[in-house]
């Protein structure tokens, strides 16, 4: 039994509480750190660079990691990133041509790809991919992970290397595609696949070293992963400072530790 006047009092109280809650919810967020979009091969390296940046300058940046192709699309649709570190310079140059960036940015590293397999996998990674060829021929591969070649540069390079080695047709039906190279690495080192081809920078990370073994794939087997970063139109002073910081020796050292080759023609 509900007493109507009493309900009205409760309703009024409820409405007041609701108003208070809504006021708290719509309260504007504090002045925020700039959001930086980074290719997934930088998953661990960029986090270290950002931590070092914070220690040195006291300023923070927010990182969003994903596939370069997806970020390029999101930037075109108006995503509020202030800086974009792409795994493939083509995306940056296209954005620059279409007026979404401040300029053409700068090369910050050259990436490599590696074949990896978890400990206990029948696949023993080797750079020549001979063991992969043998395992495929013997029917020992049921699933093999790469990033989606459609929008993830590392997936595209993995495809090129597999084509170069003449294994593409054989491996094609076994492929599982990660949405980005980090997800591909997670697939490749799970018990659900026998291995995969991912970014060398991820293979070198402690998280992956603990899970499996890797071998570097010759860089002549695929077009170079020239990685370019750029400031977007809405970049603020903190993003500008971070952009400069990535080019400094401290950041270069971190990137080198993760297997990135410094660009020779740094522009």
């Amino acid at each position, binding site marked *: *039994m509900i007493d*109507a006047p009493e309900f009205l009092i409760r309703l009024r109280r409820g409405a007041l509480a609701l108003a208070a809650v809504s006021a708290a919810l719509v309260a504007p967020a504090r002045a925020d750190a700039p*959001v930086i979009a980074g290719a997934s091969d930088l998953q661990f390296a960029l986090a270290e660079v950002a931590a070092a940046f914070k220690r040195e300058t006291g300023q923070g940046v927010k990182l*969003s990691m*994903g596939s370069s192709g997806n970020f390029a699309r*999101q930037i075109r649709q*108006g995503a509020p990133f202030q800086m974009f570190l792409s795994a493939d310079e083509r995306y940056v140059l296209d954005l620059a041509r279409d007026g979404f960036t401040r300029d053409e940015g700068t090369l910050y590293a050259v990436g490599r790809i590696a074949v990896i397999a978890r400990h206990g996998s029948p696949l023993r990674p080797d750079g020549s991919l001979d063991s992969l060829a043998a395992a495929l021929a013997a029917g020992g591969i049921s699933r093999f992970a790469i990033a989606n070649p459609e929008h993830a540069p590392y997936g595209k390079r993995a495809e090129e290397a597999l084509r170069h080695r003449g294994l593409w047709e054989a491996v094609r039906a076994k492929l599982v595609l990660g949405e980005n190279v980090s997800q591909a690495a997670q697939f490749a080192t799970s018990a659900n696949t026998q291995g995969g081809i991912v970014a060398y920078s991820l293979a070198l990370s402690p998280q992956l070293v603990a899970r499996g073994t890797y071998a570097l794939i010759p860089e002549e087997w695929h077009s170079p992963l020239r990685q370019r970063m750029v400031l977007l139109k809405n970049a603020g002073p903190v993003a500008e400072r971070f952009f400069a910081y990535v080019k400094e020796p401290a950041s270069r050292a971190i990137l080198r530790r993760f297997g990135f080759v410094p660009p020779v023609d740094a522009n």
Partner: protein
Amino acid sequence: MDWTALWLSLRLAGLTVVVLLPVGIALGRWLAYRDFPGKGLVEALIALPLVLPPTVFGYYLLVAFGAASPVGQFWQAAFGKPLVFTFDGLLLASIIFNLPFAVQPMQRGFEAIPPEVREAAACCGMSPWRSLLRVDLPLAWPGILTAMVLSFAHTLGEFGIVLMVGGSIPGETRTVAIAIYDRVQAFDNAAAAEMSTLLLAISLAAIALTFAFSRRIGRKLG
């Protein structure tokens, strides 16, 4: 635990409920008491998000609200920021996608009120507003609370749409559900497990509350 993501999800869910409360009461009451041609179509449209794949919905939102669309351009001109990949866009998507979760339980709640009671209220000369406050709401409240709890919990768990129209921008569009996905990709299973446990507990509590409320729907004036 990604506290920023958790707070973002709670804000999103809370605001969705705040907006849907009056919308749901108006729509639910209208659908419960009125019969009109095309009522089935209206009900079907409201129920559509229940069966529509979130990616399909997300795709249409991108097309409809993107920077190239009239709506997106209007928003950009009016507020100086885009609609997609922002919290506002996420909130708008969440409101539309939660319509069935808000409207249907409220509609059931209003439908359970015996017509004689409302007729008696009208006969006594109560205005529609007074009738709403003094008769309808006191009797339909289990349905309304169910709707609020369901919309809240459902928003916390929404993934596909957020991925499509939100991206994963920390503090702006990275919800708990997206943060879990990101943490798994970063091989941080410990953080993913923490957040998953929390969402599991919230979902379980929401369902338990809903069941408790729905047992009260239809309880007559004693």
